[in-house]
C-alpha cells in the first residue's frame, strides 16, 4: 500500500484516533447499562487502529504497536471460557454469571459483575480477530 502524504489527514487523525479510542473504551464500559458492550467496543477499537493504518501505513503502525493480535484473540477466548468455568467452581452451571454491588473507595457504590469479565474476553477476541484479518489482507502484496 502506498503511504499517503496528506498533512490534513494526518493532523486530524492524530486527534481523532484518541477520541475514537476513548469512545471505544466508553462503549465497552457502558455496555452493561447503556448501548455498547464488548463486541461494539472491540470493533470501535479496531476502527481506530484501521484509521492509523490508512494514514500512516501498516509497517509504521506495526512497529509502534508490536502486539501479536492472534494471541490477543486466543487470550480473549480463553478469558471467556474461564469465566464460564468460574461458575462451575461454585457448583453452578457453566457460564453462570453473578453480579453484586461493592462499595469501593473513590468510586462509591459500584456494581461488579462477572459478565464484564466475560465481555472483556469478547472484546479481546473481536479485536484480535479483526486485526489479524485486516493485517493479513492489508499486508498481502
Amino acid at each position, binding site marked *: 500500500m502506498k503511504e499517503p502524504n496528506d498533512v490534513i489527514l494526518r493532523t486530524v487523525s492524530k486527534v481523532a484516533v484518541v477520541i475514537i479510542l476513548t469512545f471505544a473504551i466508553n*462503549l465497552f464500559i457502558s455496555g452493561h447499562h*447503556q*448501548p455498547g458492550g464488548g463486541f461494539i467496543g472491540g470493533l470501535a477499537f*479496531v476502527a481506530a487502529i484501521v484509521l492509523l493504518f490508512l494514514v500512516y501505513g501498516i509497517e509504521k503502525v506495526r512497529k509502534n504497536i508490536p502486539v501479536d493480535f492472534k494471541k490477543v484473540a486466543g487470550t480473549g*477466548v480463553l478469558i471467556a471460557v474461564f469465566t464460564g468455568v468460574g461458575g*462451575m467452581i461454585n457448583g453452578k452451571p457453566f457460564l453462570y454469571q453473578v453480579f453484586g454491588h461493592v462499595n469501593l473507595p473513590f468510586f462509591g457504590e459500584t456494581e461488579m459483575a462477572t459478565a464484564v469479565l466475560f*465481555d472483556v474476553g*469478547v472484546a479481546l477476541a473481536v479485536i484480535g*480477530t479483526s486485526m489479524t*484479518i485486516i493485517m493479513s489482507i492489508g499486508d498481502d502484496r
Partner: protein
Amino acid sequence: MFSFHLAISLPLFYAILVPFLYKKFNQRIHTGWFILFVPLLVFGYLLSYIPSIAAGKTISLTLPWIPSYNINLTAYIDGLSLTFGLIITGIGFLVILYSIYYMSKKKEALHNFYIYMLLFMGAMLGLVFADNIFVLYVFWEITSISSFLLIAYWFEREQSRSGAQKSLLITIFGGLSMLAGFILLSLITGTYSIREMISNLGLIQAHPYFIPAMILILLGAFTKSAQFPFSIWLPDAMEAPTPISAYLHSATMVKAGIYLVARLTVIFGGVATWFWLVAGVGLITLLYGSFNAIRQTDLKALLAYSTISQLGLIMSLLGLGSAALHFGVANKEEVYALAIFAAIFHLVNHSTFKGCLFMVVGIIDHEIGTRDIRRLGGLMHFMPVSFLLALTGSFAMAGLPPFNGFLSKEMFFSTVWQAAQLPFFHMQTWGNILVAVAWLASTFTFVYCMIILFKTFTGKQKGPKLKKKAHEAPFGMLLSPLILAGLVILIFFFPNALSQYLLQPAWEAVLPTLAESASLQIEISPWHGVNPALLLTIGVVLGGTLLYKTLPKWRRIYRFYPQVLTLNNIYAAGLEKMEKYSLSITKRYMTAFVRDYLVYIFGFTILVVGGAALFLNGLSFDFSGDSAINLYELAFLIAMIICALIVLFAESRLTSIVAVGTLGFFVVFFFALFRAPDLALTQLVVETVTTVLFLLCIYHLPKFKKEISSVGFKAVNAVISVGIGLVVTMVALSANSNRLYESISHFYENANELAGANNIVNAILVDFRGFDTMLEILVLSMAGLGVYALIKLRLAGRNENEGTK
C-alpha cells in the same frame, strides 16, 4: 463433592502448565519429572475410595454442566470404574517414570509428548467415570484424538502419519456409530444417564430400536478395542513411542471398548444377538490375533497382535458371561457370571504383564537399536534383568504358573467349558467348536510367547549386525517393568486380596441386577484338582511346545494366504478408491469460480427455505399489528434502492464499494429509527471496518471491467438474485406474523434483576445466551486464524516457487 471432579480432571488442567515447565526447566531437568506426580496423586486419591467401594457401596457425584439440556458431569464410582481408574493412573505413573529414561530430553519435543499424554489420561478418566452418555462420548473421542496425536508423534515419518490416520479413521468411525447408538438409547428411555437407563431395562429390551442401538454401540466398542475386522489399526499404531504403546495401545485406551461392553452388559446382555456378537467376535479376534502374531518379526508388531488377541479373549469372556442374564439360566447364574469375573481379572492381569513386556521391548529397542527378531538373539547374558522381566511377562501371557495369567487363563477355560454346556443359544451345535477355538488360540498364544522370550534372549548372539553394543538398561528404566513384574507374581499368590477390594465390586457393577438376587462370591485358587480347565492348560503347553519346536516347518502356511485379501490391503484399496471417486465428484462442482458457489448456496436456500414455506403452508402474512410507514422510512427506503442500483451499474469498483457502504449506513439509520441503538452502533462499526477492508484490498484486485457473458448466464444470475430476495423478504414478513412459541420477553423485561444489566441486548449476549457468544467468538477467532493461515501460507508457497525458478 467437588474434589472428585477436580481430581480426575487434574491431568487436563495440569497439561496447560506443561509448555511453561518445558520452556523453563528442560535444559536441566527432564519434563517428565514434573508430570510424574500427577497420576500418582490421582492414584492415591482413588485408592481412598476403595474401602467404601469394597463394602458394596456406589457413589454418584453430580456437577451441573448444561442443566437446561440435562447434561451434567455426573461421576459414577463403582467397582468397574474404580478398577479402570486405578489402572489408568497406576500404569500411567509407571509409564511416565519409564518415559523419563526412554525419551531423550535433548532430541524430543517433550512438551508435546506430555501434553498429549495428560490429555489422554484426563479423557480416559473422564470416560470411565462418566455416567452421562454424551459426556462419555466426548471423552471417548478425545481419547481417539490424543491417540492419533501420539501415534503421529514422530510425524516426520511416513508410517507414523499413515498409522495415525488409519487409527483415527477407524476409531472415529466407530465413535460416530456409537454416538448414533447412544442417541437411539436416549430416544428409547428419554434419559442420558446410564444409571437411569438401567432402571428402565424392560422398556429398552422391548423397543424396536433395541437391536440397532446394540449393533451401533458394539461397532464403537469393537473399533476401539481393535476387534476383528477393525483390528488393523493397532499394529500400525505401534509407530508411536514405546511408552505410548505400553500405555494407550495395550493397557488403557484399547480397553475402553471392553469397558463400554462391560458397562452396558446389564442393558443388552441376556439376548442371543449380544451373546453371539460379543463372544463370537471376541473368539474370532482371539484366534486371528494369536495366529498372526506368530508370523511377525518385529517384536512390537508381535505384541500388537498379541494385544488384539488378548482383547478378543476378554471380549469373548464378557459375551459368554452375558448368558447369566438370560432368563432361562435357572439357578446357574453364578456359573456364567464367573465369565464376567474372569474378564475383569484378565483385564487387570493383561495390563500388568503386557505393560511389562512392552517396556522390555522398549528397552531392547533403546539399548540394542533394533527390535527385529531375526537380528536379535542371545541377549540373556548381557541383559539378565530384562530377560527375567520378559520371562515373567511372557509366561504370564502364556498362562503358566506361578504368574497371574495362569489364574485368569484357567478361569477362561473353565467358563468356555461351562458355556459349551449352555442349554440355549444353539450351544448344542456350537459348544465343541467354542472349546476347540479357545484351545487352538491359546496354543498359538503359547507359541508366540515362547518366540518373544527365546528368540530374543537365547540362542546364538548375532552381535556384529547390531548397531550398538548390547548392555543392560539403566536402573530407572528397569524400575517400572520390575514393579509390573512384581505385581504379576504378587497377584498370583494373593489373588483374593485383589479380588475382595476391586474385582468383586467391579463384578457386581457389571451385573448389578444379579448382585441383588444372587450372591456373587468367588474364592480364587490356583489348584482345583484335575478338571477340564487344567487338562486344557496341559494340552496347550504340550501342543504349544510341539508347534514351537516345529515352527520352521509349518511357517510356510502364512505364505499361502493371498496378500491381496489381507485386511490391510482392503483398507488401503478402499481408501484409495474413495479418495479417487470423491475427488472426481468434487471436481465436477468445485469450479474455483465464486459466482458458481454463490449460485449453489443461494439456490439451495431458495429451494429448501422457499420450498418448505410453500409446501408446508408456512407463509402467512399479518400486517394488522404493524405500525404505519412514515415519511422518513420511505425516504430511506428509496435512498437504499438507489444505492443498490448504483452498485449494479457502477462504472468503477470504487463507486460500487462506496455505494455498498452507503447502503449499509442507511440500514444504520433504520436501526436508529426503530430504537435499536446497540444494533445501530454495531452495524455502523462493522460497516466502517468492512468498507476500509475493501479499500485495503482494492489495490490487489484485477482491473475492473464489464463482464461480457451469455444470456443464459445472466438469466441464472437474475433468477437467483430475485429468488433469494423474495425468499428472505417472505420469511422475514411471515416470521413477524407468526407466533409459534410462547414469548420469552419476560426474561428481558427483568434483565436488571436477573443479570444486573439495564441493557438487555448486552444481558442477552453475555448472560442469557452466553454460551452462544462464547462459541461465536471461538468461531470468529478460528475464522481469523483461517484467513491468516490462508494468506500467509499462500505467500510462503509463492516465494518458494519463485525461488525454484
